[in-house]
């Protein structure tokens, strides 16, 4: 088994764990963590392809995409965290009350 294949398979596992977490976790913070785990899986997939396609250096395009993606994901997560904290301040709720 090649290195990239190990991480590629891992990426699918992390992605599915993330999806499961977004739906099943109740606490806001855990839901946000779950989205980051999902993202981690997706990014791992990109970077493992970059390693597979290496010539004198690894494919730089997926690396750049992942750096962009990480920053975008963190901006979204910070916003979600702000919303979660504000909701807790106003209501004391830490999860969606009518769980979907």
């Amino acid at each position: 088994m090649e290195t990239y294949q190990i991480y590629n398979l891992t990426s699918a596992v992390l992605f599915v764990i993330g999806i499961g977490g977004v739906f099943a976790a109740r606490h806001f913070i855990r839901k946000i963590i779950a989205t980051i785990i999902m993202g981690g899986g997706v990014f791992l997939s990109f970077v493992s392809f970059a390693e597979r396609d290496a010539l004198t250096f690894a494919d730089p395009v997926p690396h750049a995409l992942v750096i962009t993606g990480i920053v975008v994901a963190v901006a979204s997560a910070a916003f979600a965290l702000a919303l979660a904290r504000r909701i807790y301040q106003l209501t004391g709720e830490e999860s969606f009350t009518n769980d979907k």
Partner: protein
Amino acid sequence: MTDLPTSPFPAFLVGLPVLLATLSLFFRARGKAVVGLAGSLLTGVMALFALFEVTRRGTVIHILGGWEPPLGILLRMDPLAAVFIGMTAVVGIFISLYAWRYFRAQEATTGGFPLFWPLWLFLWAGLNGLFLSNDLFNLFVTLEVIGISAVALAVLSGKKTALVAGLRYLLVAITGSMAYLFGVALIYGSTGTLDLGLLGQVLEPGTTTTFALLVITLGLMIKMAGFPFHFWLPPAHSSALAPVSALLSALVVKGAFYILLRLWMEVFGVSLTYAAGQLIGLAGAIAVIWGSWQAFMQTSLKLIVAHSSVAQLGYLLMIFPLLILAPGVTADSADWLSPAWTAGVYQVIAHAFAKASFFLSAGIIIMALGHDRIESLRDLVGHMRITALAIAIAGVSLIGLPPSGGFMAKWMLLKGIFLSGQWWWAPVVLTGSLLTAGYVFMLLRLAFAPAREKEAFRPVPRSLEVCALVLALGSFLIVLPADNLIQFLQSGEVFGTGIESIMEGGAHGND
């Protein structure tokens, strides 16, 4: 693709709103609003010029950084993109005018929500960027620009219900984006390109492509609130400020639909089966019935309008089964393709006008009454004739009565359905229209009913009512240039084409 004429317009369509949004940050509350409104008008007018340029020169491109795909990113403004950008411009201009007056009227109590302006301009840049994008990863970035600015606008009121609905909207949006991006990763891994044009040529069917299609479709369905992922939309859209609700319903959800349409038609043709079309059509059909029924059952105006969005978006999904041809049918012999495309485009535009108008009217009523419970709409005609008229006109378009844009959409959809022989979709279209008629006439009956007791209608600026009315009328006026519009769209590459399904699966879903 790269031999098409280039134009600077695509660059300005994204850059200008971002420039203006950023500049508005230097001003305080009132200044932000002035820069914001001027910026909206400027962006809108430029978008209309760009639309004009495409009608004159045909599809134009802009090769960013001078690097051609697959290494670089290309912006492409073809007739379909131009029509979506033009629609965003017209609806956006009137919502901006409304927002200016609406926030001014409440400045004393609320502070006038100055952040609306930079966020709306960022949203507009994201929408234009999405319509122009020809790159799978860039589409992800524009989806995120739209997602963050849309949720930020939705929670602007700071109220508890809006915050909770906003957090759910945001989590759903992130999940949808990540699902989409996983598909993009697999596509990049299997082809080494992100450019839609190149992908259409090199993508080969296989397990990976099918899985990528699945996660991309699921991700976009989540974002456009397609059944069964519609749960986040009604609370988020109904709890936002009126101009924001209008933006979210009229424009934002259309972004994900646009990508879905583009990708299915231009990229994933090789992996699509007749059954896949039937399945997504079924999701649309359930949304039409469920959303209309839920709208019928609501007792507050904004919730009625929000649930109605779920149903109206369902109609959009119902064009997919018509665009995927059963095995053995060729695009030349399929005379229902043009009606199906026309139905899709008219449904998008008519819904954008009618729904924006509806939400703006709801905002006027909340301003006059302090709430939007529908029993208080009694004698609306006596107090606010223009708003009542706007609701009636927009409602007629939503139902799909002639001669509205909504009628054009539903008529063409039925025409496509019968020409293609997929008659089982017809009862859904008719039931949806009947249920819509149910809640629209319920509203109108109340509006004409004599007041039981004196409801205190506070005076509302006349210009707000005019904005709502103009948008409502717009949902009728769009029928006038129908022939020209369809001809224009057909000059593009995608419009009027279908997907010739190469796999077995024609037997599925027929009964």
